[in-house]
């Protein structure tokens, strides 16, 4: 019974951290994109950087989601 409770608590905490990280990541992406497009000198570089940032972040969130679901 105790082990089930601990597992449920761990899952809940993991999900809260997961969604919290998503919110932080999105806010960070918005701030970075604003700086790149407002103050950057080359729109292509800014767009490429944003693409790499979002794709890389997306892959890491996918790995995090799979890791949490496998706990």
């Amino acid at each position, binding site marked *: 019974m105790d082990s089930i409770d601990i597992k449920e608590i*761990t899952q809940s905490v*993991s999900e809260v*951290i*997961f969604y919290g*990280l998503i919110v*932080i*990541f999105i806010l*960070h992406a918005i*701030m*970075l994109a604003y*700086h*790149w*497009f*407002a*103050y*950057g*000198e*080359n*729109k292509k*570089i800014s767009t490429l*950087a944003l693409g790499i*940032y979002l794709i*890389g*972040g997306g892959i*890491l*969130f996918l*790995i*995090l989601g799979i*890791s*949490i679901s*496998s*706990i």
Partner: protein
Amino acid sequence: MHTQLLQLDIDEEILFRVRKHWFIFGVEVFSIIVVAILPLFLYVLIGNILIEHNLTTIPYTGYFFALYSGWLIIVWMSLFSIWTNYYLDVWILTTKRFIARDQKGLFNRTTASFRLERLQDVIISINGIIPTFLNFGTLEIQTAGEESNFKAYGLPNLELLKSKILDAAGKLNTSI
């Protein structure tokens, strides 16, 4: 260009643009890579020690990878913050001014400039083995008046930059 802060006069042209040397950025990226790999290294190392002493069979692999993925996301965000600082730090020489745009964080940004006719002296200094081999160092510009002197660290090709600044100032002074 789609810069917000760089507003040139009608007859003003950009002559030279420089960022910090790639080595400065490289060192920060290397640090981030070390920080990213360190938990994995410690996990394997500590896991091996515990297995050797029959203390565990590493039952917490799922927990570790969940935590490690979260750690990598934070590292990923840090990496792009560092790149943003590098990318937005830029020094621009125009036919009339020298402009320094310094990004000190996401919410800390300064833009300084001085007109070339106020230029008094340009001092370059390269200190250390790595800066000597890779040709980067400190640029110091002394200007007339009460304005504070201008100093920039980690700029590459200082001799070339100095000659371009002096050339531009010379041309401006002869045209006045």
